[in-house]
């Protein structure tokens, strides 16, 4: 009786979700930022290397997912392997990244759409967040087939724009910029930094793990879907980045938070701008909506197990939506967006999110190693093909990458470092409070809106 989908269709569904979750409008801003660190072929290598790094990380995540099918990722995986406190710390960090990301994403979208919809980004960015929050509050959800189609359209559109930029004729074109001559140590430091920043382009690929259609999906399809999605993203980003470098002068690229709009204009004029604007809207819609939805469910789950005050688990009896959790995440995203816009912190927020994600990914790899060590016979159905030595290497390298990423832009360094420190310190305090509160209180029950029920 379960799933009537063929394996190929089911795999395609997972690949589309995994890839769609990673493609964000603010990714274009990060690509521009990256070009300020490395140029020429090293620019493309850094993007590809970050994809390969995420593929290695996906092995650990797939292993954990097959041990805990359908479980809500970070909270369950890390608690099972590392204990309650590290799990809470990582979960709150992931939750904190969502508003950071939402601020950068909504502003980038607003800037991108300005050429099509002449409304100030100061209005459009909060409006985008309010729109997504409203969708969530009313319990509206896109059917999975539509989500699949959106993911495919997004990838195809980005490949089209990148391909046109790379292969199409150009007037007075500039060759791919050559990497400036630098010392070996400086070259290595810049490459490391660039890889860490480029991890941002792939973040979110792991959000597919709770969405398996049945236990069998965790033996092969979900584990395969992540590296497949990452492979597609890698090709897409490298092609797009090569197109950016071919069509935009280094100065134009590095200083432009929406380089894809300029690329669209250079490649196909008004039609190109429209294509780039549609891609921006699609990428924000898929990533932002799923991110907000996933984060609110995670918040709700924490409240249900008594780790957060019980009012957070309030459910609307009419829609079945955890309304308070949605409002809290939405409110935090709106606040972050306003602060980022007013203080011009969008790029700093994106870099901080990339650095924090490197730390979260390190904890996933560490959890995978610990889980395997505790249960060497393994009740998991998927075996991580990444050698253990490489996994240990990732555990050490990812925190270093996080530091390198946070320090990547000299001008933004103080802001990014401050942001990362504030987020981590806040999450540490919250995790400590939540850990103690959860140990003292019985699991909270959800608060149901009795008025709605009557």
């Amino acid at each position, binding site marked *: *009786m*379960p*799933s009537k989908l063929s394996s190929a269709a089911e795999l395609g569904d997972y690949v589309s979700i995994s890839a769609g979750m990673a493609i964000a409008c603010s990714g274009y801003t990060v690509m521009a930022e990256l070009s300020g660190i490395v140029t020429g072929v090293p620019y493309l290598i850094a993007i590809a290397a970050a994809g390969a790094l995420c593929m290695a990380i996906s092995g650990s995540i797939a292993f954990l997912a097959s*041990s*805990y*099918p*359908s*479980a*809500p990722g970070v*909270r*369950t995986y890390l*608690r*099972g392997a590392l204990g309650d406190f590290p799990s809470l710390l990582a979960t709150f960090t992931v939750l904190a990244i969502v508003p950071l990301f939402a601020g950068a994403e909504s502003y980038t979208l607003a800037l991108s759409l300005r050429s099509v919809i002449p409304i100030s980004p100061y209005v459009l960015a909060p409006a985008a967040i309010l729109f997504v929050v409203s969708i969530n509050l009313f*319990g509206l*959800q896109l059917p*999975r087939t539509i989500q699949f189609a959106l993911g495919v359209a997004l990838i195809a559109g980005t490949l089209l724009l990148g391909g046109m930029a790379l292969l199409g004729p150009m007037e007075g074109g500039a060759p791919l910029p050559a990497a400036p001559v630098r010392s070996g140590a400086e070259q290595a430091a810049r490459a490391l930094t660039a890889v860490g920043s480029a991890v941002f382009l792939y973040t979110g690929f792991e959000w597919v793990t*709770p*969405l*398996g*259609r*049945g*236990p069998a999906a965790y033996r092969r399809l979900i584990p395969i879907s992540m590296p497949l999605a990452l492979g597609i993203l890698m090709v897409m980003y490298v092609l797009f980045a090569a197109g950016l470098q071919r069509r935009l002068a280094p100065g134009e690229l590095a200083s432009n938070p929406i380089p894809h709009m300029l690329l669209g204009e250079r490649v196909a004029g008004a039609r190109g701008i429209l294509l780039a604007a549609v891609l921006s809207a699609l990428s924000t819609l898929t990533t932002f909506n799923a991110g907000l*939805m*996933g984060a609110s*469910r995670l918040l*709700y*789950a924490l409240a*249900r*197990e008594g780790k957060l005050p019980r009012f957070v688990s309030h*459910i609307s*009896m*009419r829609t*079945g*939506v*955890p309304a308070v959790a949605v409002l809290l995440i939405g409110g935090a995203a709106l606040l972050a967006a306003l602060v980022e816009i007013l203080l011009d912190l969008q790029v700093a927020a994106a870099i901080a999110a990339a650095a924090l994600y490197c730390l979260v990914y390190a904890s996933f790899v560490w959890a995978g190693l610990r889980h395997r060590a505790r249960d060497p016979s393994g009740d998991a159905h998927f075996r991580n093909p990444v050698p253990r030595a490489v996994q240990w290497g990732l555990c050490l390298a990812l925190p270093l990458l996080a530091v390198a990423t946070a320090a990547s832009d000299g001008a933004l360094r103080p802001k990014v470092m401050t942001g990362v420190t504030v987020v981590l310190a806040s999450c540490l305090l919250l995790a400590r409070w939540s850990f103690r509160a959860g140990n003292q209180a019985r*699991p909270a*029950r*959800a608060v*149901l809106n*009795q008025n*709605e*029920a*009557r």
Partner: protein
Amino acid sequence: MGPGSMTSRLLSCLETFRDKVNQHPRLRSLLKGWDRVVLVESSDSGAAYCMPFAASEIAEVSPPREHPGTIIRVRAPEQMLCKVFSGELNPATAFLNGELQVFADDRDQVKLDAITLVLWD
């Protein structure tokens, strides 16, 4: 206790659950328009039962068979399923511990959790 008696206990728990859901006045609002088929599967004994939700109630508890509509799969050892569907165990805790598996989208997972809350909290 043999596997046969556990299976009959699971069936009994699910039938009691169905009766409680259908008799609970507040659940009508929550279940309005929520037409899903919940497939309850034991990961150790292999027992499986279907509970189709339609018209704000559970139509029947029966062995798995073809049903139109969205399917939600709930999977755990049989003893745990009995505890979850009889209100002895908080399903949210079991789910977060990775002991109870629920294969559905986020929204359906929360809805299923909300049903147990209305019934037992």
